[in-house]
């Protein structure tokens, strides 16, 4: 725990995440609307939604257990922590060492387990269906993500995100073919994990298609708000992660608040591009049947492992 400034930076990261996550989601939705040339919802739509949900009272199913009520807070906390750890504004974060890449995967897994349990808690057909599918996606996405991290950390001989970013961003520029594989794999995982087409469709309540929605059907009011916010945070965290791994330039090394003047704009810019691309992918691809999803993620898994092999094969010298 070095200086007050880095603590401040850490706090800033959290705040940025909390603020920017809904914006990002909003931006993605806007882009999707443009692609499907519909009239886009305003950028701040997500904030309004949250506010409304917080206002509403919670309608709780009769046999909901306390786990059901605790889950939203936990999930929200996990996602917030995740977006705190990912280096966006600076690389030396006091809480950085608390969790390295592997632990980060752990955080996501923790959140997933809790949301799945919450989905099963009420005991409706949809809830358990969603939980089942979510775990199915998870058990394939998780190792793939881990493999992506492994590739990166093989390059930088470290699993701590800050070090990875420093290695990639601030050493002399080297082209890593393995990272290309890893990047593709990561994108696929990110799509799956954030309940995006082609794996899931956040905007429908069709029994056949829903995964994430099916689990949170029973949530309402502030609980639902927290979960939605957590989902947005997750998207944000993943995006930042991708940026940090594959486009780390512009994340300053030093502490010093001065560096923020570089960091914030570059982050915003990269997020805009990222969101746009995400929307583009979603538009051009079609929703998969649920049992195609394993194949999709299996491909991602394979690509990630290939990435590692490629690294061991080609880049051993580096």
């Amino acid at each position, binding site marked *: 725990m070095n200086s007050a400034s880095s603590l401040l930076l850490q706090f800033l990261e959290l705040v940025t995440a909390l603020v920017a996550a809904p914006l990002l989601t909003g931006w993605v939705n806007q882009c999707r609307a443009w692609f499907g040339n519909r009239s886009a919802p305003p950028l701040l739509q997500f904030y309004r939604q949250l506010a409304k949900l*917080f*206002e509403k*009272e*919670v*309608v*709780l*199913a*009769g*046999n909901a257990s306390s*786990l059901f009520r605790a889950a939203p*807070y*936990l999930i*929200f*906390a996990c996602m*917030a*922590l995740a977006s705190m750890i990912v280096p966006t504004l600076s690389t030396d974060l006091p809480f950085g*060492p*608390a969790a*390295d890449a*592997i632990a980060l995967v*752990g955080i996501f*897994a*923790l959140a*997933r*387990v809790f949301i*799945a349990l919450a989905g*099963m*808690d*009420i*005991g*409706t*057909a*949809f809830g*358990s*269906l969603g*939980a*089942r*599918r979510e*775990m199915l996606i998870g*058990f394939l996405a*998780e*190792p793939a993500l*881990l*493999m992506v991290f*492994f590739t990166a950390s093989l390059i930088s001989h*470290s*699993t*701590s995100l800050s*070090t990875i970013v420093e290695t990639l961003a601030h050493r002399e520029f080297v082209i890593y073919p393995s990272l290309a594989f890893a990047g593709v794999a990561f994108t696929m995982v990110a799509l799956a994990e954030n309940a995006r087409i082609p794996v899931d469709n956040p905007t429908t*309540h069709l029994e056949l298609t829903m995964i994430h929605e099916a689990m949170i*059907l*029973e949530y309402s*009011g502030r609980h639902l708000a*927290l979960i939605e916010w957590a989902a947005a945070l997750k998207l944000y965290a993943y995006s930042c992660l991708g940026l940090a791994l594959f486009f780390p330039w512009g994340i300053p090394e030093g502490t010093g608040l001065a560096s923020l003047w570089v960091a914030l704009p570059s982050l915003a810019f990269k997020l805009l591009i990222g969101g746009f691309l995400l929307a583009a992918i979603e538009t051009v691809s079609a929703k998969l049947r649920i049992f195609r999803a*394993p194949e999709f993620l299996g491909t991602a*898994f394979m690509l*990630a*492992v290939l990435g*590692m092999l490629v690294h*061991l094969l080609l880049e051993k010298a580096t």
Partner: protein
Amino acid sequence: MPSAPGFLCLDWILSLVCVWLAIGIAGLFAPRSFHYISRVLYPLGAAVGIALAVVAFAALPATAETMVLPLGLPDLPFHLRLDALSALFLLLLGGASAGISIYAAGYLRKGEGTAPGLQCLEYHLFLASMALVLLADDAYAFMVAWESMALTSFFLVTSDHRMPEIRRAGYIYLLIAHVGAIGILLCFGVLQGNGAEGVAGYTFAHMRGMDHNDFWASAAFGLALFGFGAKAGLLPLHVWLPEAHPAAPSPVSALLSGVMLKTAIYGFLRVCLDLLHHPLWWWGVLVLTLGLATTLFGVVFAAVQSDMKRLLAYSSIENIGLLFVGIGLTLTFQAFGMTALTVLALTSVLYHCLNHAAFKSLLFLVTGSVLHATHERSLGKLGGLIHRMPWVAWLALLGVIASAGLPPLNGFVSEWLLLQAFLFTPDLPHGYINMLIPVAAAAVALAAALAGYVMVKFFGVIFLGRPREEKLSQAHDAGILERVGLCWLASLCVALGLFPVFVIEKLDHVTTSLTGAGLGSAMRANGWLLLAPIDADRASYEPIVFLLCIAAIVVAAFLLVRRFWHGRVRVSGAWDCGFPMQTVRMQDTAEGFSQPLRQVFEPFYRLTRELPGSFDKKPMYRVIVQDHFWYWLYLPVARVAELGTRMVAFLQQGRISIYLLYSFVTLVVLLFLIRG
């Protein structure tokens, strides 16, 4: 021999073991008096367990102590030795058994299976023999303790011997255990080497001194792998495990899975790292691959079980696989003389031993409570128990998180260490292994993720949702003694999860004694909070900070929501997309929940589906998942043996002339042979 004056740790431990024996025998005096046994003897045993743990903990840093008992063979009395490794596993035994015994005290019911007194005897003999296995310092003492362990546990497993399938389970268990034991015995026969002077060559001290050429060393290694693998449930010798664990009473299953499997790990470590000094690199690779196969097999099968104890048994197989993966890495690293990594891998193995002992015993005890509350073992008939038995449910949740390998509990730490060990392999001077390792790492990651799936199924189907049967509504929570036992194990899970640095510092004594180096020195530099095996900016993990962050955010979020908005709640029926009629039958059963996995991993299983016809009056859907190994390995072996018996039967045709002919021919042939 340490010349420390007075009462050594070894003496303490020995006397504690004797107390266990005494308790067991005391059980025989009043075999039917229920209160005497459940309220006096078992708690006493638990106290002994704690004492054992304390002494072993004190013995960890001490130098090795040895002792010779006036028992055993004439030239080969029982040698005992207490070094760091055995101290660690004794600590494990004591800690786990304390919780299990106190739970058993509450768990015991009248009129189940064998007389409680007899069961008490077997139980404590089992504990004592495990302790002796860990202390033994010569082949004979080890084998005696080892087989007594198998025997007592067999009687415990079959304590409800009226059911044929339980007898069958016990039979398979004892058979495989015995064959494995013969393997171990032959392994010692090899280790003792040729220079041995008579019986005195069977002491471990002598074996340590021996130096074998590659062939004999590999033979010993192979036999050890066979023998200890059979006990640990390594593929393809795992079949007894999913049979025996469900058959046993829950505390016994907890002991079997939590502690006894670890004795196999202990033996394997003892032989490979202590008695055999120079592992060959391919040993490591072999163990690694077997471990991976076991891990994947175990978890994939665990996912489709619909009997909660079988599910846990398969998950034990998975964890054993992980342990062997770690051992494989250790051996490989040691073969290439990379000490730092050897230590890392070994630490992860030892750590995971402790973790698995804690959370798996906890989960098995939980199934015990559920069993008593509902008399139901099939997941498909449970559900919604979190309302009826909150204590068990919340403690079970801890165990589930731990065993799913999620932060911040203990399962995650060892998994994290293992993955770290994988990450540093590229420095290996061997190309193929380098290529193999990523795949292995991927498989481990996959297994870990699947474990999450399994655990969600376990917890969700048992405790969440709505009760699938009417009778569940009068389920009752665990009694006070049971709660104490569960809490003890759960707190172990939490402690192991939150203070890894402290634990690893203790593990150092073991790693130093086995490989001559430790992690702790490097880590103590970074302070108590930070777990950084190599150095802080290579990899680090701070469970406490992690937990505090999450807690802080949760609290903050809660308070803020309350502060700015409100906490109003209206209770009503479930919405469920406005779906009109909802029955409890519409929830996922165990089979339903694992259906995606059955599709993904179809080739792994031997599936037999019974689908309803179109016009069934009462349609019935059943799917039976079986193990290929029965049909690929065991039944063929049985068939071969059967063939052999049929062949020898020709010798005994009952005709006396033929018999005379036999002896005549024998005589002539022998005469012919010696003519030369």
